[in-house]
């Protein structure tokens, strides 16, 4: 392999047929005491008008009659080598001076004397000093090396997993959840497609290694809260954000709440009775009654409800899967509001340790304006969010600006690629070229987890039971 030319921060490398490199591979260009780290992001044929004309001419001639060759100098094989020659487009990522990684990429390696070789992940990690205590094995790199990130890279960070449908997003999120739980972390999952219940089971039907640490919470059944546990703050948030209650009605509701609390008879039933007899404006009463009926029909409240502290006090690591598949959009929003408010309250009081939140297709149950609040405010309390979505444009630019890690699966749609490449942490060319051709269960990891050097990973198969697949009429 040889350097052909340089344009901005891009090098063109000339490769012959036997020089193998895949999109995403890192190459080390060694030039005396200095080295340059580049990443291949695209591959194309060495092409010229003359070469194309030769190929066409040969094909036309061979289509008309059978060819017999006498080529004593074996020039034909050289010609075939040239036709198979390729150009690797590579982005300059860093340089190595005296064994130390440097961002000084202002120098130019020699075209004649430089030696180009593939950089293994181990070598790259040693240059980057990428290490941690709690590894999360994700799978393999392009050349079959095992690849892992560290749980510390997700701790206190905002992560986005995105890619088109059936590209392997849920696969990765399950892998992350399982390993986080194994490392003793507490994870709350908003499960929209009832697929995370499989975390507790292996494919053969046996219980998984985290079987006992999985807590399935079905709103209205196994997930109910007491009004006292939720507190005025969480209920206020729910009424305001999920049920769009106007401020005047909200004030009246809290007068009722305080009155009942003073009487020590706060419950859903007593709220209902009080609202109907409360001396207030008829419009306000109607607003209160309509919200009351929604709350009552959601069955989210009971005298003795779920307590996050109880699960967390249980020991080392747990995944609380909140199943939201069968809920109406309003109830979904109520659940999310209650859960997030309560978690923020508990974290503020340091009643629980920080938790990891996995939100699948969050745009379906959280309003746009509320997202940024989750990212900025909740992060300080200790809720570290991972968004999983197949609609990158559903996530606002404000969130992308704060993102620490992105796991990008395949996208072929230009509009999606445009969006991702504009807001991503990596350059446009790399995103567009690599992501477009990623096979299923392969992703491009970008961000702090990979020390800002994009890496292509083949996500490992999980032993867990895969649920949430699309139900089909025609069975194969």
């Amino acid at each position, binding site marked *: 392999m040889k350097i052909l030319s340089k344009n901005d921060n891009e090098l063109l490398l000339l490769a012959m047929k036997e020089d193998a490199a895949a999109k995403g591979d890192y190459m080390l260009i060694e030039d005396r005491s200095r080295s340059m780290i580049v990443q291949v992001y695209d591959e194309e044929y060495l092409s010229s008008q003359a070469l194309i004309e030769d190929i066409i001419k040969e094909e036309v001639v061979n289509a008309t*009659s059978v060819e017999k060759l006498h080529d004593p100098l074996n020039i034909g094989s050289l010609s075939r080598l040239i036709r198979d020659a390729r150009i690797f487009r590579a982005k300059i990522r860093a340089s190595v001076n005296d064994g130390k990684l440097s961002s000084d990429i202002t120098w130019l390696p020699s075209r004649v004397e430089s030696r180009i070789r593939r950089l293994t992940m181990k070598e790259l990690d040693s240059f980057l000093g990428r290490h941690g205590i709690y590894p999360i094995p994700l799978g393999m790199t392009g050349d079959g090396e095992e690849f892992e990130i560290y749980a510390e890279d997700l701790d206190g960070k905002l992560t986005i997993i995105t890619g088109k449908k059936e590209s392997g997003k849920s696969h990765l999120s399950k892998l992350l959840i399982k390993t986080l739980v194994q490392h003793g972390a507490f994870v709350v999952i908003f499960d929209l497609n009832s697929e995370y219940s499989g975390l507790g089971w292996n494919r053969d039907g046996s219980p998984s290694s985290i079987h006992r640490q999985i807590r399935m919470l079905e709103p209205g059944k196994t997930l109910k809260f007491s009004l006292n546990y939720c507190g005025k703050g969480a209920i206020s948030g729910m009424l305001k954000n999920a049920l769009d209650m106007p401020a005047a009605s909200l004030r009246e509701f809290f007068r009722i709440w305080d009155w009942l609390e003073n009487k020590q008879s706060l419950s859903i039933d007593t709220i209902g009775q009080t609202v109907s007899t409360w001396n207030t404006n008829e419009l306000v009463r109607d607003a209160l009654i309509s919200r009351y009926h929604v709350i009552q029909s959601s069955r989210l409240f009971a005298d003795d409800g779920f307590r996050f502290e109880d699960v967390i006090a249980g020991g080392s690591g747990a995944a609380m899967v909140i199943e939201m598949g069968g809920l109406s959009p309003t109830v979904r929003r109520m659940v999310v509001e209650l859960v997030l408010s309560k978690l923020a309250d508990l974290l503020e009081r340091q009643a629980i340790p920080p938790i990891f939140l996995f939100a699948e297709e969050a745009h379906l149950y959280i309003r746009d304006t509320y997202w940024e609040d989750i990212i900025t405010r909740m992060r300080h309390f200790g809720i570290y969010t991972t968004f999983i979505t197949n609609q990158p444009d559903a996530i606002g630019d404000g969130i992308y600006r704060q993102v620490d890690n992105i796991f990008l699966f395949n996208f072929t749609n230009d509009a999606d690629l445009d969006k991702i490449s504009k807001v991503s942490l990596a350059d446009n060319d790399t995103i567009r070229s690599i992501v477009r051709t990623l096979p299923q269960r392969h992703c491009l990891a970008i961000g702090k987890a990979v020390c800002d050097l994009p890496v292509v990973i083949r996500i490992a198969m999980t032993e867990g039971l895969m649920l949430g697949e699309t139900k089909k009429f025609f069975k194969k």
Partner: protein
Amino acid sequence: MSTQLNSPFHESLSLGDLGIVESVSGCLTPKLDELNGKKIVFNCDDKNMIPVDGWGLRSDPYSATTVTTIRPIKENALVAAIDSSSVKIAETDDGSLYGIKCGIATAYAGRALMHFKIGPVLFYLSESIMEHSELEERLARLVLLDDDFAKRLVRVRAERAVQKELASHFTNSIILVDGSLKTSVFEDRQRSIRKIAENCVLRKNMMIGISKGTKLKVIERAAAPLAKVPGPAFIEVDMIIKSLIRNTVGSNSMVKLENHSPVLRADIVGNRIESLGMLIGNDPVAGGYPETLRLAHHISTFTSTEMTCLRSHVLNSYDVTELAGDDIRRSLLGSISV
């Protein structure tokens, strides 16, 4: 200003004062008035152009009279067309390196059969090599002095070698050659065109040399009646050609292989009617030119990739040191392209 520069010429000096204008116009009589009433075809990039519908009939002292139509003979025979090309690859301080490629395309019963690519093969011609060759001394010097002669030497020799083998191995076949059948000073005595023609006759082969263009304007005019004949036809032009060129082989004709196609010169060893009839009966003709000959041309030309590969082969296989080259014409004349 002029006094400062001390110019030897006065500013009003003109070409007329120097007598150059009279001298140039008197060096040859232009006679441009003779152009009046003439039909004209403009040349392009130094290439000879022919009028699409011929020059038309006019009285010509050489005008041949008999036009013979050609009927395809549906008797299966092998047609083998040969073409070659040579290029100069490199130069050393005492010689030059040439490359040659030959192509043989075959057809049978009106269908393309197979083709053979021979080469590229390299030949190095230097003073010491030419000293030990069987070439006549004056010819050897000429070859060393002029690249075009050297290229012609390797091409004629290689082409004749192929023609000789085909003529000696095939029977009842047609051997098609690009260009006229004419003896060359560069031929090897054992593989001369005359010997090849003899072999053809002995083995009942026919040999046809087809020229795409001719510098003999007179035979173009003589072939004018062919334009009026529909379908394949020929006119005998032996008298004209033999009177102008001495060393041709076989009979000479001007042929048209298809309706509304160009008229080509064909030198034939064998019976004219039979050879041409067998040719159009066994070789697909497109645009008035045999397909085998067209294919042989395409497979024998050097491509730019092959040239790159040959350079690479020379650098890798022989202990040579590459020197930087410079295009002297470009350096001296500049690179203004219009």
